[in-house]
């Protein structure tokens, strides 16, 4: 165990906020007890740092880096049950198991996350309407608590701690290993269909028709067009194919070279990008065979894409609002965003299904979710997000903790009804910048 101030800085993906007085506590083995903590210091496990806001930071306290604990423990080729250390990345799982005919049960939009992070945020993906969240496919895991206890948790063993740790934001202890159920695939390719929609009404219609036909679906939405084009975009859906394509694709991924200057992401640039992207296909519907990598992880091809937003970083804002009510809420949200002219490239829209999420603090719930980036322009960005908050919370919606850097304690309490219950399972020596902010 060593601490050192010179060491690389641990930042979140949005590079905002910047942690202060944060140190790393390196552990040598997952079989050792947790390091001794001085005074009232707390720790937080840190994986690959893909959480956007402050849920993976621990200012004035310590992080325990876990990404080096990335070993597979066992795999049963008969059942597809995989056990691995918590620092194992989804990329490693895919690289090893796709050639053997297995895939992740639920995958987020990047493969650069650890299994521990996938559990701690109860991540969701393009198949939420069929498979629910990642936590539903977790069979069990081991939790190391600060009092030295090692507990194997599953839906039947320590079920409360199991439910608290899934989406528990790393606050219930250190997850050492995780056992998940992989799903069989016949091919690394998907039969895909991309459909243009001219406005939000069309999106809702296509979405409700397609959910029964496609395991995977997600939409990219243009957040710069107003009026009749409000909420136009591309609906991308797919099913794993039965056939394989013989040609090999390249694994080239290029790093974003440096932190971009602030003036680059102006509204003219954004509008042009969005218009070009919307018009990348001429016909309304395009079908094809697509490799899983560009389908699931289009942005992973640009390593460090967050540098695009420069030193000041950016906010990611992901909301969910209940579906039943009416389409006017999501329309109102889009109207606010397009009027502000602050939205960026990446606006993603998806309907969540009604499969219950297993975690006490899980974000996904039946409704529509929208995720988008806002470059950090200071006060005007904050004002816009405050306005969006008032619409989201009035409609009974919620924001995703993994992407949050600014939600109020009141909003957090209101949108996570099992918070009180969760608190009793949090480990007293585990905390995060996010946790102190929203419970403060």
């Amino acid at each position, binding site marked *: 165990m*060593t601490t*050192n101030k*010179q*060491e*690389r800085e641990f930042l979140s993906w949005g590079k905002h906020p910047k942690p202060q007085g944060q140190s790393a506590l*390196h552990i040598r*083995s997952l*079989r050792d007890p947790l390091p001794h903590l001085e005074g009232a210091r707390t720790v937080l496990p840190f994986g690959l740092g893909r959480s956007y806001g402050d849920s993976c930071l621990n200012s004035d306290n310590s992080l325990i880096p876990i990404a*080096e604990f990335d*070993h*597979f*423990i*066992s*795999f049963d080729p008969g059942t597809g049950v*995989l056990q691995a*250390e918590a620092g194992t990345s989804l990329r490693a799982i895919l690289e*090893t198991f796709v050639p053997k005919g297995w895939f992740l049960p639920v995958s987020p939009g990047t493969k650069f996350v650890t299994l521990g992070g996938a559990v701690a945020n109860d991540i969701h993906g393009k198949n939420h309407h069929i498979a629910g969240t990642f936590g539903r496919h977790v069979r069990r895991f081991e939790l190391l608590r600060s009092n030295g206890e090692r507990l194997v948790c599953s839906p039947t063993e320590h079920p409360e701690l199991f439910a608290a740790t899934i989406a528990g934001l790393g606050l219930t202890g250190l997850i050492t290993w995780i056992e998940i159920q992989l799903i069989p695939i016949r091919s690394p390719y998907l039969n895909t269909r991309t459909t243009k929609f001219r406005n939000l009404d069309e999106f809702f219609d296509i979405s409700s028709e397609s959910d029964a036909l496609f395991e995977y679906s997600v939409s990219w939405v243009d957040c710069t067009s107003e009026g009749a084009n409000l909420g136009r975009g591309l609906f991308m859906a797919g099913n794993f194919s039965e056939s394989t394509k013989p040609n090999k694709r390249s694994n080239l991924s290029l790093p974003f070279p440096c932190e971009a200057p602030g003036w680059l992401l102006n509204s003219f640039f954004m509008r042009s990008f969005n218009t070009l992207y919307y018009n990348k296909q001429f016909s309304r519907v395009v079908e094809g065979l697509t490799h899983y990598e560009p389908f699931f992880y289009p942005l992973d091809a640009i390593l460090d894409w967050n540098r695009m937003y420069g030193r000041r970083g950016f906010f990611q804002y992901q909301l969910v609002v209940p579906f039943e009510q009416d389409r006017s809420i999501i329309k109102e949200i889009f109207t606010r965003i397009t009027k502000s002219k602050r939205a960026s490239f990446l606006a993603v829209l998806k309907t969540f299904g009604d499969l219950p999420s297993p975690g006490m603090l899980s974000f996904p719930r039946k409704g529509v979710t929208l995720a988008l980036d806002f470059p950090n322009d200071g006060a005007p960005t904050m004002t816009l997000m405050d306005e969006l908050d008032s619409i989201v919370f009035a409609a009974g919606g919620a924001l995703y903790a993994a992407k949050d850097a600014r939600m109020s304690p009141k909003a957090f309490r209101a949108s996570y009804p099992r918070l009180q219950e969760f608190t009793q399972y949090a480990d007293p020596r585990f905390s995060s910048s996010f946790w102190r902010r929203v419970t403060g």
Partner: protein
Amino acid sequence: MNNIMIIGATSAIATEVAREFAQNGASLFLLARNQEKLETVANDLRVRGAKTVHTATFDALDLESHQRRLEQAVELLSDLDAVLIAHGNLPDQTECQRTYQETERALQTNLLSPIAFLTWLANYFERRGRGNITVIGSVAGDRGRQSNYVYGTAKGGLATFLQGLRNRLSFCGVTVTTIKPGFVDTPMTQHLAKGPLFAEPRIVAKRIYKAMTRGQDVVYAPWFWRFIMLIIQHIPESIFRKLRL
């Protein structure tokens, strides 16, 4: 290559190289200091597709034990196609300057222990008439610098030893590969401030795997270190001695 021995197998770089071999169905014999870590790595390699994985512990300071381990490897795998020597540590230069004992330990671990393995392996592969021996050296061995010249001495000495060995074995079809990694982001360099020159162990490991399967001679990893070291080696000594490197 089917039968591979890896010495220092639980280091970040060596584990990644072992994964490349495991994915391709190789049989492996792993040596490292810590049995618990060895078991962790061995299980990982089995899941990834290794045909068989054997493990044994060793102590780099116990040179007498080295030959036994090599004989054990040949016994268990029945034959060796390639060996990767990857063990070593980054000695504390200040401590080495204070006491000779510390310097001696550093040279034992990073120079004499690899040479003890190599002496036996050279004769084994010479008899066998084909195969590859790969050793992880360092760019630090290319020129002595005040900040880590003891480590540099070990790695520089090792590089010279390997040059000679390569020359000797080239007549019987055995390749000897010297890997010179630059800065790699591993537990060994945990205490150093990270800059843009730091590479991921996985990237370096992929390069090592390629070098081993092709039987290349001297490989810098990542590649740009060849040019950095070319410049550093050509700075006149009268200037170099005044630099704070």
